[in-house]
């Protein structure tokens, strides 16, 4: 009895903490943003930023899905060094976003690694940094592990004998992939896509450092409004749009994964 009471008190304290410092502040922001919504959708500048954010998010998600498949198949097929390769995929995920982005600046910059190689081969240097392309590359690097890991998780549940019998019946590796591996990994694919997409559309550092100031995304707008021009109504409005998008996708994907699971 006494234990039940103490636990309840603890639970109430934690819930109150989250209420005061999470729910209340976020609700206040969203409510402040609400009256501004009409000006968001009537301003071409905001619409452009929204579309750019979505476009970048979709590109990152699509490309990461395609390049995650071979590596996920490889990791799933491993026996002895599986843990090692999984931690190899995991390590970049745990490192600092700022640090990873600096790496890409050195690679993609004007005198960067890519341009040095191009010049060495006799080509003209190209402008890579401060384009949508460099943002996509940076985000891809940031979120690829979030696609690979759920895919590996899903593929580990596929019965190896199923693939074996398909092979015995004469199916080639491509047939095995499209008839067994791909359909049976859809759940991992939806989870991964969701994590990558939501991560991409809400990230700030990568578009800021690799995209430069001209190519605004929603998160960059939010920061500019809040910290540079001190327009907190405008910042709240952008925050509302971002939250609606991410929450919307989270709910939608929850539905989707239920459909996929049957």
């Amino acid at each position: 009895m006494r234990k039940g009471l103490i636990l309840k008190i603890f639970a109430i304290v934690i819930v109150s903490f989250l209420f005061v410092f999470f729910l209340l502040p976020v609700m206040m922001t969203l409510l402040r943003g609400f009256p501004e919504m009409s000006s968001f959708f009537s301003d071409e500048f905001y619409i452009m930023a929204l579309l750019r954010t979505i476009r970048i998010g979709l590109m990152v998600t699509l490309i990461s899905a395609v390049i995650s498949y071979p590596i996920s198949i490889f990791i799933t097929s491993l026996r002895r060094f599986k843990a090692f390769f999984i931690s190899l995929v995991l390590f970049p995920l745990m490192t600092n976003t700022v640090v990873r982005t600096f790496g890409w600046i050195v690679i993609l910059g004007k005198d960067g690694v890519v341009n040095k190689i191009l010049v060495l081969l006799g080509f003209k240097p190209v402008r890579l940094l401060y384009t949508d392309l460099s943002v996509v590359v940076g985000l891809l690097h940031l979120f690829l592990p979030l696609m690979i890991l759920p895919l590996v998780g899903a593929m580990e549940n596929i019965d190896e004998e199923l693939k074996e019998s398909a092979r015995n019946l004469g199916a080639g590796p491509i047939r095995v992939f499209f008839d067994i591996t791909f359909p049976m990994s859809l759940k991992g694919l939806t989870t991964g896509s969701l994590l990558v997409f939501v991560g991409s559309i809400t990230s700030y550092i990568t578009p800021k450092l690799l995209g430069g100031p001209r190519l605004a995304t929603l998160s960059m707008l939010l920061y500019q409004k809040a910290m540079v021009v001190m327009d907190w109504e405008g910042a709240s409005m952008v925050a509302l749009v971002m939250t609606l998008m991410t929450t919307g996708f989270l709910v939608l994907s929850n539905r989707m994964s239920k459909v996929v699971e049957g």
Partner: protein
Amino acid sequence: MKIIFWMAVSAVFAFLMLPLIIVVVSSFSEGEIIQFPPNGFTFRWFSNLFGMEIFKRALALSLVLALSSTTLAISTGTICAYCLTRFKGLPGVFLEWFILSPLLVPEIVVGFSLLSFSVRIMKSINPFLILLVGHTLILIPYTTRIIWSSLKNLDPSLEESAVNLGATRLKAFLDITLPNLKSALLASFALDFIASFNNVPISLFLVNPGYTTLPIQLLIYSEYYFDPTVSAVSTVMLLLTLILLSLVEKGVKPFIFISHR
């Protein structure tokens, strides 16, 4: 076919590792700007770094902040997880929803909301305290999930038998349940510390002059100078992450930590 497959696999690993390797290597370069391949070899950027007051202060703040928010998040997360296994029905569902809800909102929105809340409502709050609140807040859901999944596998009747044999509730929890959570607690410690130490979206809005975390200080510095000091700071941060990550045992799924973007 096989060759294409192997090339694709190696290319992806190279893609994942290359930027990190380049940052580390360039921190030993003698040139005044960050470049790759590096020229020469020197430790001067590291000694430069440890001679700079701003980075020393930022490092100290980040370490203290990470340690305190981790401690708070682990104690809170353990209690939350314990409650979630014991509360049945509506209170349990309500509590779960409440604890995990910070995952639904983009961190950058949480950061901005905390800033505007602290300025409007709290008027003047200690700059360290608001950073601590922000960091703890986003660590709680992750920590709860890790400890909860470990607690679910533990038979509650173990604790019950200890109580029946005369132990107090607290002693039963400390002697029976807690030791069984060791690997989950260790994993939470490492992952929370990494997530707090590397956090950008929350800190971005809550830092103050004199209270700037290391990633944000690095960001500010890099806007003015892009010399290998930036790489040296990055290398120190990578090293710390690597050490902490080695504490995590296999079997824990750290990728549920999608924080610190």
